[in-house]
């Protein structure tokens, strides 16, 4: 019913600052960058090559191998991070004597920047490092966490998860705050068990927040390559060579921006499809209160 009196001026005022910022500092640079994918640099001159850089990817074995790794990596890391962040959020909001100390400690990874986290974990996971020292006490032989084809990708998932879940936890806690306590009280009086409350009340009512966390987390993880750059440089035997790292090498190490941007456009296209699916599945709007 308010539609008939849509306050056009207000909408413009509310939207314009954000839209100008996003257009000038994000979307316009993005358009320029995408444009690069249609050019190659030869002898200092940009040459328009149409879709050649994309066509070349079709027969590029490094690209296909990276694509497989990227999809596998994301298939694992996103559900793990979101499930653990949700679990951590539920632990965080419990009230009992002494919980305050844990609440502080659960926040620690938020302030540790990713490069710092990676430096610390690399030393801890090295052959003679702390982690192998600790498992050695239990009699487990030292593991080549970052140097074995079978382990490196999972070690990177573990490091990124350590760094990420406290951060996502905060968003989920914010979402939990939007659920009315009376719903839980009513359920408890009706004798609904704790795990049932989680499945049938908390998660459904948390859907808008979970959609945000899912979209944001998936986007960030698809773009993630700093730990790979710093820890394994795509190895051992290409086992951690995700698409973003392949693109980074092309663009910044090899001076081949055409191929780099073509790869990135493919990554964004995949991301858009995935995010579209997530919207379909999760955005059935519900009234929370």
């Amino acid at each position, binding site marked *: 019913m308010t539609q008939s009196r849509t306050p056009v001026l207000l909408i413009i005022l509310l939207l314009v600052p954000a839209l100008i910022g996003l257009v000038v500092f994000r979307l316009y640079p993005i358009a320029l960058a995408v444009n690069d994918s249609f050019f190659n640099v030869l002898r200092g001159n940009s040459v328009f090559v149409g879709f050649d850089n994309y066509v070349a990817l079709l027969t590029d074995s*490094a690209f296909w191998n990276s694509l497989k790794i990227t999809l596998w990596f994301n298939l694992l890391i996103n559900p793990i991070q979101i499930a653990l962040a949700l679990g951590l959020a539920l632990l965080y909001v419990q009230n009992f004597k002494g919980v305050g100390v844990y609440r502080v400690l659960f926040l620690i990874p938020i302030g540790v920047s990713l490069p710092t986290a990676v430096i610390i974990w690399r030393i801890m996971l090295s052959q003679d490092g702390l982690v192998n020292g600790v498992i050695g006490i239990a009699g487990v032989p*030292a593991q*080549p966490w970052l140097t074995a084809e079978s382990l490196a990708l999972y070690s990177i998932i573990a490091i990124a998860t350590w760094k990420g879940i406290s951060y996502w936890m905060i968003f989920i806690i914010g979402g939990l705050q939007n659920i009315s306590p009376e719903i839980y009280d009513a359920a408890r009086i009706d004798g609904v068990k704790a795990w049932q409350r989680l499945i049938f009340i908390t998660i459904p009512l948390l859907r808008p927040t979970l959609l945000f966390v899912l979209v944001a987390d998936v986007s960030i993880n698809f773009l993630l390559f700093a730990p790979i750059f710093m820890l394994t440089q795509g190895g051992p*035997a290409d086992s951690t060579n995700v698409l973003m790292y392949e693109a980074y090498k092309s663009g*910044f190490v090899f*001076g081949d921006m055409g191929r780099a941007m073509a790869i990135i456009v493919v990554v964004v296209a995949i991301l858009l499809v995935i995010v579209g699916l997530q919207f379909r599945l999760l955005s059935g709007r519900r009234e929370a209160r």
Partner: protein
Amino acid sequence: MKTMKIAIVAGLVASMLAGTAMAQDKTLNMIVIEGGDTTAMQAVADAYTAAHPGVAIKLQPYPFAQFFQVAELRLRSKDAGIDLVYVDAPLVASYASRGFLSPVDAGISTADLVTSALDAGKYDGTQYALPINNSAQVMFYNKALFAAAGITPPDGLTAGSTASQAQVDELASAKRWTWEQVADAAQELTVKEGGRTTTYGFTVEQFGELYQLQPFGESLGTDVIGPDGYTAKGYLDSEAWTKAATYWANLYNEWGVSPKSLGYGEAAQLFGNGKLAMLAGGTWNLPGLTASGVDFGVAPYPYFEGGKVLTPTGSWYVGVNAASANQAEAFDFASYLTTSAEGTKVWFDSLQQLPTYKPLLDQISTGADFDAFPQDVFRLGVYDSLNTAKARPVTAAYGQLQDAFRTAFVDIANGVPVADALASAVQKFEAAAARVAP
């Protein structure tokens, strides 16, 4: 309304920061690596501006790990805010091939520069960059660990002794250890306790890097890539390189004398803590190792038995950004930095890196300041740079080569079969290089 506020705040801060306008006629901006290099460059710039009052030189220091990325981005954007560029030797070709650098002014006399260093600044026969200094690799050894293992260390330069250039030449030409000797000693020096290694026998400073390992295969007779700069088949997968890579594999797996995947600087830390018996590394480690208190000697960089003696070389160059509006002034400073007696002296005194300016090398050979340890190590650098130095290949696809090479050698250390790793490196390099080959 809200953006207005932000704009006002931003404007205020901006006007606060803008108080440093230039009074001179010309300002030259130079990008350079943060740390000692910046300190040394500032010293040279101060000396230069004292003699040239119309010119100011502003350094823009960037951290080492990000320097290449930032330089790449800014040069690619044809940023006129950069006049002078600090260039790593192997990147000269990549920059030159993409038109980032101006050809060096023909009026600059380069007769006093070491030829091999000068050649590494050329692309397609044209000089694009001038060498600022050189680098030399040696082998550091821990005397106490050798004594404890009861084996004789290599001949070398040690604390408390002096060495003339003739004596150093004799050491470098006749008493250089082979990699086979290093392997034998390393196996005896490595100490394992309960399945864990507490002392390592040997490691190289830069794990898997082409700079450090190029002499491995090339000393056995085959270059890492072909003369065209884009072919690796028949080179990196040759018999010579297979033998070199097998030696490398054994260090980590068969013999277990080297620690895996050390980051930058960690090998020197390990040596300084007395947990490593031999370290093949740069002379730049001397100040740090002297400060660590470990009792060490310095031997020449080894070679393979029956092979040719070759040693790593090449370091930093200076070039002039093609987009700069101050070409003449920029070249004048570049020339002062690299080909003048004063400029090179100020640089050397500040950074203590092996010079490429021949009169300065002569001073090292004859000056009494360089008789005693550790300064006499520079004489080893002089010998190697004039006799055994082998520059990295000149190719616009150097980044591709370095990456494929490092990937292969890291994989080999981690247990990937040598033949597979080298074949994969050849394939990757050639595929990526073909995209930038002219």
